[in-house]
């Protein structure tokens, strides 16, 4: 592996450029390099691992049982990257991907804007694999912008990278298998969590049960049982929570919640929220990939073929970014994506590709078994996706409330892009990552149509921050001069 520390060290053109050094990206880069492709893995974090294996090479939490055996599996992925001929650029952001103006061949060459340490460059890649993973679903409840309220995943990252645990009166709230895993990891590390507020709608069990047979044959079963049993020891769990709000002036000091007909308020220094993860589709969206609304996962999922190539030629999405399937599945999908790209680049025949892929696909089927059950069981309640209280902030950056959004739908604004123009929601620095799903679902709810019909924000590069100075230093073309200098 060759480590790249500044943009000048990047080649002009790569066969394969991979974005994101989580399980899918690590596997794709190593596989691509094994196929003899010139491959570069670009990642915005200082060290490899993505979010699930965050800090895998650097974590100070060395007691294996704290983060668990599944976490330490990431080590092998990093090792195979290190052993490969791929290049690896940490601390590097990709702010733009588009079709190359003069594509060198028919495989769909792409042009990629990369920025490292304050300097930008545009390079070419014959194939791009985006392994941009997942992010936690927005959890818009009153008070969720207060200091002291953070995502459970955020607290997990602080633990993995820095050995930090939340202190004082800690409350976790939400739903999904990861909530239980993160809680278990934090407790194993020594965090005292006083209460878990479980928001899983009890009625979900009825709908999930028909997918149970697969789940019962899956490895999720034993892991899940272990987590549930562990959670019941030494921590109060409140199930069927219907409403949550955080309170405090400049910092959260209490959390209020409703379960059954009871309202309760508890003092709280740290409130950790989590209700599942959704694909991080900002890049795919900006590139122009066709996206579908997934009724089970309640999110946008890019359209992909068997090799995860999207509707945009040469642009592939591997891992959770192409629909949530977990870390093990992500690594397998990364390998398949690299095999697909290798074939398109003429490195291996269709037969060779399929032969190599067959055992990977078999593993993927095993790894994905039982997901459907979890998807349906842990669909967050509508009240936590479409806030009912009008003063709940939906767009954190521009501070746009649910009430304002509903008022504007009533004015005739029928989609999120018009909504942006009217209210600035989604126009702040996070570019709609924390409000996009909520805004779509809220409009759909208010109009009485499906989220798929409403559509999502249409995004444009840069999808990561780039300064005007960096942008200004990029090469110009005669056509650009004609367009701008008059």
């Amino acid at each position: 592996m060759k480590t790249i520390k500044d943009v000048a060290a990047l080649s002009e053109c790569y066969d394969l450029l991979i974005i994101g050094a989580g399980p899918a990206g690590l596997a794709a880069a190593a596989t691509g390099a094994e196929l003899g492709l010139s491959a570069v893995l670009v990642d915005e974090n200082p060290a490899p691992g993505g979010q699930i294996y965050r800090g895998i090479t650097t974590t100070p939490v060395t007691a294996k049982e704290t983060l668990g055996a599944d976490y330490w599996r990431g080590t092998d992925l990093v090792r195979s990257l290190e052993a490969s001929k791929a290049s690896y650029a940490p601390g590097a952001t990709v702010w733009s991907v588009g079709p190359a103006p003069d594509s060198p061949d028919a495989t769909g060459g792409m042009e990629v804007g990369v920025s490292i340490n304050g300097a930008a460059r545009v390079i070419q890649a014959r194939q791009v694999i985006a392994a941009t993973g997942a992010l936690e679903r927005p959890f818009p409840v009153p008070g969720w912008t207060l200091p002291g309220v953070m995502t459970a995943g955020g607290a997990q990252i602080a633990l993995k990278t820095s050995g930090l645990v939340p202190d004082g009166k800690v409350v976790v709230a939400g739903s999904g298998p990861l909530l239980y895993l993160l809680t278990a990891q934090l407790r194993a590390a020594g965090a005292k969590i006083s209460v878990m507020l479980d928001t899983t709608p009890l009625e979900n069990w009825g709908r999930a049960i028909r997918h149970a047979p697969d789940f019962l044959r899956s490895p999720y079963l034993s892991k899940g049982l272990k987590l549930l049993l562990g959670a019941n020891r030494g921590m109060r769990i409140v199930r069927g929570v219907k409403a949550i709000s955080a309170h405090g002036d400049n910092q959260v000091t209490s959390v209020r919640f409703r379960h059954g007909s009871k309202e309760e308020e508890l003092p709280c220094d740290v409130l950790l929220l989590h209700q599942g993860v959704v694909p991080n589709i900002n890049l795919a969206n900006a590139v122009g990939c066709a996206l579908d609304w997934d009724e089970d996962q309640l999110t946008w999922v890019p359209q992909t073929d068997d090799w995860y190539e999207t509707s945009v030629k040469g642009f592939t999405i591997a891992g959770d970014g192409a629909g949530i399937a977990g870390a093990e599945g992500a690594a397998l999908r990364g390998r398949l994506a690299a095999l697909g790209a290798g074939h398109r680049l003429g490195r291996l025949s269709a037969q060779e590709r399929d032969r190599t892929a067959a055992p990977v696909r078999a593993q993927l089927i095993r790894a994905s078994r039982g997901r459907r059950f979890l998807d349906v069981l842990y669909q967050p309640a509508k009240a936590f996706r479409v806030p009912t209280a009008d003063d709940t902030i939906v767009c954190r950056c521009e501070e746009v409330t649910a009430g304002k959004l509903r008022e504007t739908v009533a004015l005739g604004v029928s989609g999120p892009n018009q909504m942006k123009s009217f209210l600035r929601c989604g126009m702040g620095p996070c570019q709609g990552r924390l409000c996009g799903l909520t805004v779509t679902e809220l409009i759909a709810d208010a109009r009485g149509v499906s989220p798929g019909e409403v559509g999502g924000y249409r995004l444009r590069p840069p999808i990561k921050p780039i300064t005007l100075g960096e942008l200004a230093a990029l090469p110009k073309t005669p056509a650009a001069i004609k367009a701008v200098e008059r």
Partner: protein
Amino acid sequence: MFRRLPDLGGETVTFTIDGHPATARLGDTVAAALLASGIQSCRTTPVSGAPRAPYCMMGVCFECLVTINGIGNRQGCLIPVAEGMVVETQKGARSIASELPAKGDAA
């Protein structure tokens, strides 16, 4: 809000937060170092002036924006803390007029 696990070992780095000396563990991001130092809020918003603190720790929410070595609106959760780093919390919109000349000026 957060405390460091005991016996982590590793090197420490010293830096400043709003002029006050602070220590972090080498490998911490700026956002993690702020949490470890007990900083409640790292900025106030340019829209309403409300206080905010790190939220996602993975580069997507842009809540942990701080001024680092004179340059405003940097994502604290993506930048490793370094020896001698000058970190400042922010009030409202970034003031470019009062910042040091930015690096990466156009040629």
